């Protein structure tokens, strides 16, 4: 086996995961290459040192405080999760999970009015604040093609692309003491949350950590005012990303505060 190829596989050789044939080739090369033998010895020593870290870690006992926090309601599944769980029990069998999700989706569609509230925020134009969100939500929420078709001419995608262009050149409003100048950013983020949740999560994560909590608090209040906090929270929870799960709790809290 050639030198470079062996050098790349030394860790696998060390870990004993090469097949007999590949292992034999590595051994044959090792027999004739001092450099690779030295590399192997140093990698082995590195691995052994790391293994030494395994011993002697004393963990604090976390169970008591975690149970306390659970009792205080910090790990409660939200309303939507409970709905989905009970719908899941109802629709058992192979199609249970998708049916349950669809049922909850329909319930949300029926129960949550898609209102276009006129919100008054200082420095902002009221109509434009609430409407893009209500519009953005409808096509995603509705499993019914007709509803989507009716809304297709009002697609928020074009506006969002324009907003993204505007935002890229604008100042970072969340660094200001108040969010008065953040109207465009709010709309852009909320639209993204409903349209492309992963991108939303990455965008929020890109906000400096010192500002992130404040900014997501602002976004969740804004979403609650326009009635979309619950569906944003649900989308965030539907991802596999624990960062998104943590964001979801902000929107849950805001949706309850808003009632």
């Amino acid at each position: 086996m050639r030198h470079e190829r062996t050098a790349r596989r030394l860790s696998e050789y060390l870990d004993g995961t090469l097949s007999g044939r590949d292992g034999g080739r590595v051994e044959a090369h090792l027999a004739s290459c001092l450099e690779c033998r030295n590399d192997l010895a140093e990698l082995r020593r590195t691995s052994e040192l790391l293994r030494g870290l395994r011993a002697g870690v004393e963990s604090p006992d976390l169970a008591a405080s975690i149970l306390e926090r659970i009792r205080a309601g910090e790990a409660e599944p939200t309303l939507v999760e409970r709905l989905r769980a009970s719908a899941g029990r109802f629709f058992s069998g192979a199609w249970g999970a998708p049916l349950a999700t669809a049922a909850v989706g329909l319930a949300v569609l029926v129960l949550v009015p898609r209102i276009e509230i006129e919100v008054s925020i200082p420095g902002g134009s009221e109509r434009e604040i609430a409407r893009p969100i209500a519009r953005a939500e409808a096509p995603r929420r509705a499993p019914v093609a007709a509803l989507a078709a009716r809304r297709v001419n009002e697609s928020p995608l074009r506006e969002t692309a324009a907003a993204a262009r505007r935002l890229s050149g604008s100042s970072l409003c969340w660094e200001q003491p108040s969010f008065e100048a953040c109207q465009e950013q709010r709309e852009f983020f909320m639209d993204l949350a409903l349209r492309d949740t992963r991108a939303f999560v990455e965008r929020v994560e890109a906000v400096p950590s010192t500002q992130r909590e404040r900014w997501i608090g602002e976004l969740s209040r804004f979403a609650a005012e326009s009635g979309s906090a619950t569906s944003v929270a649900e989308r965030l929870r539907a991802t596999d990303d624990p960062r998104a799960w943590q964001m979801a709790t902000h929107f849950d809290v805001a949706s309850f505060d808003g009632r």
Partner: protein
Amino acid sequence: MTAVTQPLFDRPRSIPASDAAEVVDPDRDLVDRWRGGEADAFAALVRRHQRRVFGLLLRMLGSREEAEDAAQDAFLNLHRHGHRFRRESRFSTFLYRIAVNAALNRRRSIGRRRAHADAFSDAYAVGHAGPESGSDPERALAGDRLRTRLGRELLALPDSLRAPVVLYDVEGLSYGEIADVLEVAEGTVKSRIHRARQALRARLGDLVGERGTQP
């Protein structure tokens, strides 16, 4: 690709993920009882896994305080999202995935607070009751220094390299399990572990070889 060369040293290695489905998950009973509504079963799961979760988070984050906070986050998320566990992997794999994510989350939020590795906390050494910390204080001190040094060099690695090498060398997971935890291909795990060890070897130069501090 059937025969496998003998490992060069003994290492208790957990079962590869591909076989995990057929193997009885040691946590299965507790997980079932927890899902059946027994709070005690959840507490038992926390107690059973807290040392490993905390140990992993300590290596990932570098301070006991951050590791404890992240471990709490991880177990709360486990409780909140446990219904997502589908038994396609072992429960411990699922938990490791949540723990790694908790660590990455926390590192993002503390990234700016800890701008320099110098700020690395001595807490690394504090609270370790390693085999050295017995009768011989000099050896105990040397052991603590070594751990602190290793911890600092681990922290200097990028997250993408640190997580796999910690899971393999420190936590003793298999390549397959690590691929499951990190949700990357097994080949990626292999190459990242190798790159991580090479980087560490270079940084630990004086400790690992006769070739001294040569890069």
